């Protein structure tokens, strides 16, 4: 198990390097120049050259990449060009907001998704199943940007229950969490249902029935536990996805976070900040996948056995 874990961790190194090259290069290949935002009407070409030199933008790209990677590995994310503050500070301010939002959305997706999935599986092909699966289809296809505005219209404008936007108190978290969480809920519900139905047909279930256990007890104690393995994997994979999904939702609800920081920095072409944000999002995906693998290994006796 330990050697597997070490191997799995070592595999992260090439993945990280590949991701860093991609993040660094796409930004430099899209047109647009951060210096344009710094220079005001009346600035001379000399002033421009001086600013470029100050931020190292006059050096060849591979050199810029080397310097950047070296700094990132030593924990130095650089200084924001437009915001003129250490990028690490900006990230440290934004990240807790995104983690709170993303974490709650994940929790919501898990609790509601698994519940709906179990109900749908237990009442397979009856009307609650059809209603839930219909809702799931709707939930997973609605773009979060649009869903956010619709939720604002219903719950803030018409009903007046929650504030339209902002980050004051928990009540301003409800609608953003719902907006991000509903998509995940749909996914989790679907996987839980399929996985429960699939597990119900296994031999051990027949054995349990033969032993005379109550069907509900079999489903909730034995089948559900079995069925949760793929659900946990999916949830871990969604950690990165949820942080990424928070980008548009944070903008719609005018909340602080990695998403608002990323969008603002993109429009200002503030490379160091954009790179750091993308790196954070990519790391979330990578670590989420790792976590998914580890959890799966721990939960599935077959995987555990194969590893040791």
């Amino acid at each position: 198990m330990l050697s597997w874990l070490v191997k799995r961790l070592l595999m992260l190194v090439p993945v990280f390097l590949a991701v860093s090259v991609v993040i660094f290069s796409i930004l430099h290949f899209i047109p647009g120049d951060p210096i344009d935002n710094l220079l005001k009407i009346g600035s001379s070409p000399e002033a421009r050259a001086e600013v470029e030199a100050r931020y190292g933008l006059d050096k060849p790209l591979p050199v810029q990449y080397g310097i950047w990677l070296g700094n990132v590995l030593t924990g130095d994310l650089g200084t924001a060009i437009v915001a003129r503050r250490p990028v690490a500070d900006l990230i440290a301010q934004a990240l807790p907001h995104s983690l709170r939002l993303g974490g709650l959305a994940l929790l919501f997706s898990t609790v509601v998704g698994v519940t709906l999935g179990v109900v749908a599986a237990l009442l397979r092909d009856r009307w609650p199943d059809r209603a839930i699966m219909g809702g799931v289809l709707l939930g997973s296809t609605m773009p979060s940007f649009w869903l956010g505005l619709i939720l604002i219209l219903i719950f803030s404008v018409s009903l007046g229950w929650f504030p339209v936007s902002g980050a004051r108190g928990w009540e301003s978290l409800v609608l953003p969490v719902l907006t991000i969480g509903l998509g995940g809920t749909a996914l989790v519900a679907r996987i839980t249902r399929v996985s429960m139905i699939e597990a119900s047909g296994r031999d051990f279930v027949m054995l349990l029935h033969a032993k005379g256990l109550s069907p509900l007890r079999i489903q909730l104690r034995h089948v559900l536990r079995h069925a949760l393995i793929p659900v946990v994997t999916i949830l871990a994979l969604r950690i990165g996805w949820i942080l990424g999904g928070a980008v548009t939702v944070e903008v719609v609800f005018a909340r602080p976070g990695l998403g608002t920081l990323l969008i603002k920095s993109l429009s200002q072409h503030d490379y160091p900040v954009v790179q750091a944000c993308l790196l954070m999002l990519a790391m979330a995906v990578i670590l989420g996948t790792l976590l998914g693998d580890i959890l799966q290994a721990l939960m599935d006796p077959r995987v555990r056995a194969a590893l040791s």
Partner: protein
Amino acid sequence: MTVSFRKSVLAASVSLAALLSAQALAAQEAVFAMSTNEVGAPTYNPIKATMLNTATGLLFDRLVSQAADLSYHPWLAESWEEAPDGMSWTFKLKQGVTFHNGEPFNAETVKAWLELFKTTEGENAYMAEAIASVEVLDDHTVKFVMSRPEPNLLYNLSSTFMGVVEPKSFAALGDNYGVTEVYGTGPYKLESFSIGQETVLVRNEDYTWGPEMAKNHGPAKVERLTFREIPEDSTAFLELKTGGVDFLLSVPADLMGEVQKEANLAVLTMAGQDVWYMPINVTKAPFDDIRVREAAAKAINQEEILAAVFGGVGAVADTFLISALPESHVSDGAKIKYDPARANALLDEAGWVMGANGVREKDGQPLKVSLWTQSDSIFRRLTEVVQAQLKAVGIEAEITTFDSSTIRDQYKTGEQQLAVRSYNWDNADIVDWFFGADRLGYPNVSMFNDPKAEELRAAAMTGSKNMEERIANFTAYHEYVLTQFPMAPIYQPVQAMAYNKDRIALPEKIDAPSFGAAAFLDLEVKE
């Protein structure tokens, strides 16, 4: 699973009850939504910042204020005098003014503040670059010794970037100045600032030195102001509609109708500082022929655009400058106005004959040109109308759309022929910025490089001793540029804002170029 579900239902209903009892805003507080283009300003440090928002103008006063007609009036300076040769200025300062941290405002602080422009790393040094040194004549009189005449000095001194900072705390706080703490002499003090989120200001109770054009010179009438940063226009509008926000400092044209539909909301407009125009690349055939340039420029029907695209809100543009600027008063003949007969005649004269399909031809080549625009919906709508108007005189323009943040790099290639764009500036030196020969591509999208224009430009930029001379020189430069048709002026928008009539009482007249300190001093919240 079921237990936790039940718990969350319970929690949700408890919280709902709490919400329903949530109270409305207490009186004498107002919530503003910052203009969307001001969202994300990272600091309130006017010496270092490249971007400052509306709240900055309430923290810092300036020596000089501007009225709606862009004339200059006293603020922290009571009066001033320029030496006849333009090589020095003497300012008499107001007495009894103090900074938020209790430090006095006097001649010494003005000297120390101006030195910060030279010693602080940043891109704003040029604001004070022509001031060689500052002499303290007495406690409340300063003399600026100039390195060259700078008739634009009063403009710079009235800019938010020249808000007077308290020099001691500026030095002591370093990079935290403007982020965690900030001290000016303004009508409001900073209570809290969360970057990209909100800024809370509280009234400066000692304030009695407001700008001349405000009716109330202080203290301000509203105790607390909250400025929220909402990046999405539609979210900001919904906040206004539901009472979460009392005032939107910007409203896009497409939401104006929605605002007018609500009984308790109103739109406030002030003269704009934008000009929309169509640059014409003078180096690209067929526009290397001045006749074709003039024809394209005079094919633009500004009145029709004002009515059809902008619903009649705003004004037509017939020069390159906003009409509040004296330099926009060029001779009638130099103004660029819709004249289809002249456009058709010029094209005939240049050898472009009308073809059967409504597109002109010369030597078997159709008069086809490219027309660049940016992806924002209002640009696309306007550009389609421009395309139709060009077609009416036989010019077929093909629209290419670029992302608004990348179009500048496209201009740098110099491949553009026609484009639709806008700028925001309230000083005649914008002519230099967009038509100076050393900035071809961008900002000089027209690739305009004309020896006579360069001569007039030098005279306007550095050869004027005083304000009258500067106005005369810039008017001449501006007028000459217009006669060479490197662009066609189209439209001047207004600054549109929206507010809740039940909450906010506005002064009858806001005599200032924008919604700033003067307006906030006179603004009231209804009980």
